[in-house]
């Protein structure tokens, strides 16, 4: 073959290819013109999807809704012209449309064909949009090599705008959906999960174990309060329907400070709006009684509250434990207050209590421990004084619908740790107690790492699981979840209610829980700085929840990871329905001074100032 023949052959092949392409486009253009009402709807649907960052599923759903109109139209046609003659109507209307090539004529034809053209056009728009996304993300489409990145960036921006619009709409993200699910916010992007405009979690997910990780100012509090209010509303409605127990929400705010008070106040207002009757803020406004615990649990707790050490100190720890057992399980019942407990840490008291002749071994133990008792009493006196009166009663968890417990974990870590232990124990007792009304309990620990020194988070988790208590834990970072990598992984990997990751500098271990997904990557051959016709496509693995995307999340945006899939969401600020809010209270008039009893002039009995000598400063 000569060079000239070869050149002619190559040129012919090139022309043939181009002719095919041209013919294909001409056929498409002709079809678009012929079915112009469908083309108009498809173009509009495609543009809307592109501009709003919708996934194809959103467009398909719109097409499905439009089928209702088609059904109504067919019914109307059948009623006016029986015998399935309705099928001819679109063709007739379309044919007539070509004779009236005016704006009014075209509008009339479109109106006549709309019941068919709208669903068909929207379905076509969904298909084209799905193809476009596929082509761009796999590298088959686009003019430049950077097209996939530019497309993704642009779509992310538009998806956020749409999700924010939805999150700000008053009725789009209520505290509780009609289906009983807990709406979280507008969906930005769903990868692996089924796409819905609003991400909503089943109430059962909150009643299991959930982890929330986000840096300060990332919107973690908003998210947590929304989940608490949603869980509370859902559980309360279930209880009112007779299908479950009444809710009991116990929040441990482990950082404390002024910010915690603001959060507590906000949570309380929201829960009152959601139907709570009593929301107690501990220790500022309400108390709990540690001494209500059964003797066995009280013994273990009192022992754990004191740092007893290991190694050579184990001897002392054993003595300490023996003394607590003697003091708590003494005949006559356990102590009812801190003062009563401290009174018992006395050699004479213990020997008298156990010296009835029927408890010879215990009496012997009391005698043996006598020389340690002043030290032990001193330690417990110091601890109980630092814990304050808020754990000395009166009060039980059952008395309120929700408890917001503020622990000063930043200021007084050791005290907050002991308080956290006690509160957790009280929650566990409330879950297992057969005396009172059974309650559905959610224990939420905000920034638990501030108090996790003595009770690791994994213990809290396992305890909650064994008792049927939902446990929700938040931390500022992956490192805040636990002391060791193993513990952190155990906490995150067993969160069967899901993991929320907000903006955080090191999200990789959490996003790894969502795993990877298969993606196609196309490599093009470059010819003179432009893409050629040749290339290869191969299968690759990409993050399901992209850690770089998580790192760049804005305030109020979160990534929900559950069952190997991820949904990015714009969390909506929790607000109860304005219709349920009570009217603002009337301004409170100044409080009059209490009526004082006319004091008897000659009173030989101690004056009120010296009552403390008799009752103690805190005694009633």
């Amino acid at each position, binding site marked *: 073959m000569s060079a000239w023949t070869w050149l002619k052959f190559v040129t012919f092949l090139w022309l043939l290819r181009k002719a095919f392409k041209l013919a294909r486009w001409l056929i498409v253009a002709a079809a678009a013109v012929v079915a112009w009402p469908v083309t108009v709807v498809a173009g509009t649907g495609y543009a809307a999807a592109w501009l709003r960052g919708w996934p194809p599923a959103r467009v398909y759903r719109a097409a499905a809704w439009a089928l209702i109109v088609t059904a109504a139209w067919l019914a109307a046609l059948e009623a006016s012209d029986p015998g399935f003659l309705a099928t001819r109507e679109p063709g007739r209307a379309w044919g007539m449309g070509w004779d009236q090539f005016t704006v009014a004529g075209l509008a009339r034809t479109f109106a006549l064909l709309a019941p068919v053209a709208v669903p068909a056009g929207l379905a076509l728009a969904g298909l084209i949009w799905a193809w476009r996304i596929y082509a761009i993300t796999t590298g088959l489409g686009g003019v430049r090599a950077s097209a996939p990145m530019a497309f993704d960036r642009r779509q992310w921006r538009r998806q956020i705008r749409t999700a924010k619009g939805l999150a700000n709409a008053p009725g789009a993200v209520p505290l509780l959906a009609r289906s009983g699910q807990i709406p979280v916010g507008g969906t930005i992007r769903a990868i692996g999960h089924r796409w819905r405009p609003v991400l909503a979690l089943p109430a059962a997910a909150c009643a299991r174990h959930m982890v929330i990780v986000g840096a300060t100012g990332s919107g973690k509090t908003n998210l947590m309060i929304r989940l608490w209010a949603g869980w509370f*509303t859902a559980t309360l409605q279930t209880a009112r329907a007779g299908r479950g127990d009444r809710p009991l929400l116990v929040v441990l705010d482990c950082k404390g400070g002024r910010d915690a008070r603001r959060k507590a106040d906000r949570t309380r207002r929201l829960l009152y709006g959601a139907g709570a009757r009593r929301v107690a803020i501990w220790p500022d406004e309400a108390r709990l009684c540690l001494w209500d615990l059964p003797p066995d649990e009280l013994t273990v707790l009192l022992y754990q509250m004191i740092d007893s050490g290991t190694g050579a100190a184990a001897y002392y720890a054993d003595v300490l434990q023996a003394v607590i057992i003697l003091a708590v399980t003494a005949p006559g019942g356990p102590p009812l207050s801190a003062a009563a407990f401290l009174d018992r840490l006395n050699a004479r008291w213990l020997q008298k209590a156990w010296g009835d002749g029927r408890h010879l071994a215990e009496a012997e133990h009391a005698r043996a421990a006598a020389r340690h008792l002043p030290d032990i009493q001193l330690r417990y006196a110091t601890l109980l004084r630092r814990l304050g009166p808020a754990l000395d009663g009166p009060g039980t968890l059952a008395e309120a619908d929700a408890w917001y417990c503020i622990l000063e974990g930043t200021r007084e870590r050791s005290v907050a740790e002991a308080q956290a232990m006690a509160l957790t124990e009280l929650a566990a007792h409330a879950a297992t107690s057969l005396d009172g009304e059974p309650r559905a309990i959610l224990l939420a620990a905000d920034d638990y790492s501030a108090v996790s020194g003595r009770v690791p988070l994994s213990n809290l988790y396992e305890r909650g699981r064994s008792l049927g208590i939902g446990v929700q834990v938040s931390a500022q970072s992956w490192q805040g979840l636990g002391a060791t990598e193993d513990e952190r992984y155990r906490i995150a990997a067993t969160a069967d209610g899901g993991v929320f990751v907000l903006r955080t500098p090191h999200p990789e271990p959490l996003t790894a829980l969502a795993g990877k997904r298969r993606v196609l990557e196309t490599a093009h051959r470059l010819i003179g700085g432009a893409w050629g016709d040749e290339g290869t496509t191969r299968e690759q693995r990409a993050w399901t929840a992209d850690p770089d995307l998580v790192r760049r999340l804005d305030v109020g945006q979160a990534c929900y990871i559950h069952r190997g899939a991820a949904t990015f969401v714009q969390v909506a600020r929790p607000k109860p329905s304005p219709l349920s809010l009570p009217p603002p209270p009337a301004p409170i008039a100044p*409080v009059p001074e209490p009526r004082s009893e006319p004091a008897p002039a000659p009173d030989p009995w101690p004056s009120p100032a010296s009552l403390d000598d008799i009752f103690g400063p805190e005694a009633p």
Partner: protein
Amino acid sequence: MTTTTPNPFRALGLPERPDLTDEQVRAAWRNIAAATHPDRPDGGDLARYTAASAAYAELRTPWARSEAYADLADQADDGPATAPIPVISGEELPPEPPWQLLRALTQVPARICSGRPLRLAIRGLIAAVLALIVLRLIPGTPAAPADVFGLILWFVLTGRKDLAPPPER
């Protein structure tokens, strides 16, 4: 918190208010305790002392005072506030009463007012104008009611989010 004293405020000679201070409550109790303590030479008044002590135990914190106040207010209305939430027996949800839909409908104006009424009005105006155009272009054809129905459906589906949520949600 269950109210154990019939009226703890009265037992301490205090006005029935939730906003009393700790000092006011404590001062009231100390006065009564000093006057009625059983260790007094005249024997005191044990019953009154016990009632005052119980009332003080009940009113010593701000939260407890607001609860006691709420209990009294509820007792004045229908019954004790501590009554458990009524539980409806059975596994299935109770059937919706026939007036439930009516109640939901009566809430619509309030939900519109508390939502985004302007957006709803614009949406409604667009739907109405398009419906009028359709009725003018293709009067009497089966497509006309279908198109109008489609516009109403669009208005209802897209306008829901502009309404405030119902009270129970």
